[in-house]
């Protein structure tokens, strides 16, 4: 099986898989590694939570349709099919928690020296998050 590059919000992953037309087909292990959800007879499951989907709809032989699974858990995707590259968004729920629910979603980003920092590590203090740019 060839590999597909999955561009996640925080990282990019190389997973075993292949693209067929608009589909990105991966094995079950890769599905878990990318989305954090598992395909089970009762649906897409994560810990005790399950989203009902018909297992057979997502299965293509032994492979799972990654983009359809992503859609089911609120993750948008875009495929650059000529390069076997697929980009996945953050779950829509995470952003609506921020915008409607007023919960500041955590993120992990490197500082200018390459050391990872997170929003949460500064919890307990009032924080001004300032998005800026050189452009």
């Amino acid at each position, binding site marked *: 099986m060839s590999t597909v*590059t999955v*561009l996640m*919000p*925080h990282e*990019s992953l190389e997973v075993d898989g292949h693209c067929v037309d608009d589909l990105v087909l991966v094995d079950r292990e890769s599905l878990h590694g990318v989305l954090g959800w598992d395909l089970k007879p009762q649906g897409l499951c994560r810990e005790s939570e399950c989203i009902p989907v018909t297992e057979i709809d997502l299965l293509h032989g032994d492979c799972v349709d990654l983009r359809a699974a992503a859609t089911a858990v609120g993750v*948008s*995707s*875009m495929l*650059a099919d*000529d*390069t076997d*590259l697929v*980009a*996945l*968004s*953050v779950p*829509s729920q*995470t*952003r*609506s928690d*921020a*915008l*409607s629910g*007023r*919960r*500041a*979603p*955590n*993120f992990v*980003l*490197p*500082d*200018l*020296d*390459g050391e990872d*920092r997170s*929003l*949460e590590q*500064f*919890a*307990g*203090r*009032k*924080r*001004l*998050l*300032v*998005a*800026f*740019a*050189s*452009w």
Partner: protein
Amino acid sequence: MVIGVALDESADDVRPLTEGISFPVLLDRDHVLAELYAVSNVPTVVWIDEDGAIARPNSAEVGTDMFFEFTGVRPDEHLDRVREWVRSGTLPADAATEIPDLNVDEIEARLAFRIAVHLRRCGEPSAADWFATAAELAPMDFTVRRAAMPLQDLSPFGEQFFEFYAEWKKAGRPYHGIPASGNEPQRLSQRPSGLIPDTTANQRGRGLAARERSELERVSAQRTREGAQRLKVPEETSIGWPTHSTSVQVLMRLGSVLVAQVRVPSAKRTRPMARVGPARS
């Protein structure tokens, strides 16, 4: 405290802007914040309280008066509000503003942008197509359109930017957040005389007023000179645009405000509160 997050490709582009800054400055090459917080332009400031709740959502704030004639935004009101929040927890009325979610096109534009920057890092010429796709999907989004300019060897103060800026103004300055206070029409009368209300160009759809543009170009040139001096490189070899940034100034101003305010008054205030309040773990 302030946490700066640069939506930039390279730490080297950011470092010249953050000299003397002691708070954390993070690098967001893939525009995670543009997705997580629906950031659509910089600078965008989000107030987050001790418990991780968003106290005041995305807002367009600046650090100095330098670009006032261009943006119509002054920093002082925001800084005063920040001081008040830090001191007493009081929030301004606009803190309750709800920021609309990204629409499907805006989400897909971010994905296309992410594909574009990835391909660019791999040296793939097809990156250009994906930057174009992203711009078509979210033509009014600075994190998509303007951020792509330096990545395609275009100056973010070049002709393409002015065209984009005129389009954006004509469209009513769309922004995912509380608009810059100076851009509210009812505030125009409070401006000192002699300044151009930017609604004139807006309403007539004429694009960028000539005077605004010349002012911006003047200030840009000045900033380039200053940046070149600071970087100790000859002016003509400086790529110029990193030093144009207004947004970094918000970092510096906010940083000094918060350091000054947090250290002194909050330490004094906590003692009486601790006496009357419930025991804290």
